[in-house]
């Protein structure tokens, strides 16, 4: 097993301080830089893994968690079926768990909801580089198509995990809890709905820029509070209440969209 891992070198882990240009992101100081050389694409990928995920990634590599290339039997370096050695490209199942795909903690009780958006972005960009159309333009149509499909799944996965609302909805849907189409809020939520309606009505009326910003800030505060609550609820594994709070967040998002629409006028 180890012999196969050795085959995937040059795999270097860099524990040195981060490049200066990145140090503006304070959060990245908490990350490890992992460089993977894609011989086939002649590129070196730089991935940023959260400090506590870094050993996991190495462990995943050593235990060949990602499986092997069916063509040359080299282990895959990431959760993508693209061989860094021979360039063989497989099919990524569309229902792959998005947290697994990006090397993120996937257990909501252990903070999957609280993911670091900057690290997510770095992983996303690194992985998109691997299946970028330019890298596959000289390949067969079949291979190009596969790379495109993987790229499209990555896009969906990224935008799903990026915002707290869609992330919460995704975690809930993985638990079999959906914000059902047919559900409606009624009497028990009248106070909340009145609050939403009041803000929406306010947004219909004449407002100057300052007033709009004030509404926006108030809405941001409410949304921040809801996200904090959601974080807590996910850690507790309180799915039903988390669903309620995700709905609340959906409404704050609606208000934010309405504010943006007004601002663009």
């Amino acid at each position, binding site marked *: 097993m180890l012999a196969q891992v050795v085959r995937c070198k040059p795999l270097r882990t860099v524990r040195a301080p981060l490049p200066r240009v990145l140090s503006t992101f304070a959060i990245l100081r908490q990350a490890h830089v992992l460089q993977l050389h894609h011989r086939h694409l002649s590129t070196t990928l730089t991935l940023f893994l959260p400090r506590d995920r870094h050993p996991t990634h190495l462990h995943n590599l050593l235990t060949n968690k990602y499986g092997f290339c069916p063509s040359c039997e080299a282990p895959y370096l990431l959760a993508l079926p693209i061989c860094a050695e021979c360039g063989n490209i497989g099919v990524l199942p569309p229902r792959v768990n998005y947290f697994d795909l990006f090397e993120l903690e996937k257990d909501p009780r252990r903070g999957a909801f609280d993911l670091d958006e900057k690290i997510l972005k770095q992983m996303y960009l690194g992985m998109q580089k691997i299946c970028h159309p330019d890298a596959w333009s000289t390949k067969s149509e079949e291979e190009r198509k596969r790379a495109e499909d993987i790229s499209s799944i990555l896009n969906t996965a990224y*935008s799903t995990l990026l915002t707290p609302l*869609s992330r919460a909805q995704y975690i809930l849907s993985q638990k079999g809890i959906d914000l*059902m189409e047919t559900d*409606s809020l009624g009497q028990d939520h009248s106070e909340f709905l009145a609050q939403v*309606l009041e803000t*929406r009505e306010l947004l219909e009326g004449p407002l100057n820029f300052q007033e709009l910003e004030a509404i926006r800030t108030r809405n941001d505060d409410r949304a921040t509070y809801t996200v904090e609550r959601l974080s807590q609820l996910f850690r507790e594994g309180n799915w039903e209440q988390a669903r309620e709070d995700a709905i609340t967040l959906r*409404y704050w998002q*609606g208000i934010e969209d309405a504010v943006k629409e007004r601002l663009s006028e």
Partner: protein
Amino acid sequence: MFRAALRSSVRPIAGPSVPRVPAVAQVVKRAYHEKVINHYESPRNVGSLNKNDPNVGTGLVGAPACGDVMKLQIMVDDEGIIKDVKFKTFGCGSAIASSSFVTEHIKGLSLEQAGQVKNTEIAKELSLPPVKLHCSMLAEDAIRAAIRDYKTKRSKLTATGPIPEAQPEVAMA
């Protein structure tokens, strides 16, 4: 951090929310029934009634999947006939069309008749596509909620004595 996330240019992909402005253009392309477009472009009976008026019942409902909110108010006369209906809906085109249609439909009906309006009638009349059926359901829920509110108000009033004059509304946003 969150502020940036909520304001991200990436629209949340979950939930079948339809952007309000482009909805009209898309509606034409997707061949929504012309009644939907008509109600969406020139909704009937938009507005508010005085919610403190003892003759007014207010229904407030929401569709969590879309983040829609719908307010429907009925004014009922002494014979139990719905004399006036007003609505305000913040949501997608189909939700607006459904509530607009419903206000026209229930005006002049008795409370009992209005309470029997089914979402299937609304959906059929507007030829809503299956993914938008919940909008008609929302409208049905709104009627029920308004009737319930009216009845609760009346039973409270009869319990406490003679019906007072309508109080002018103070803080109406």
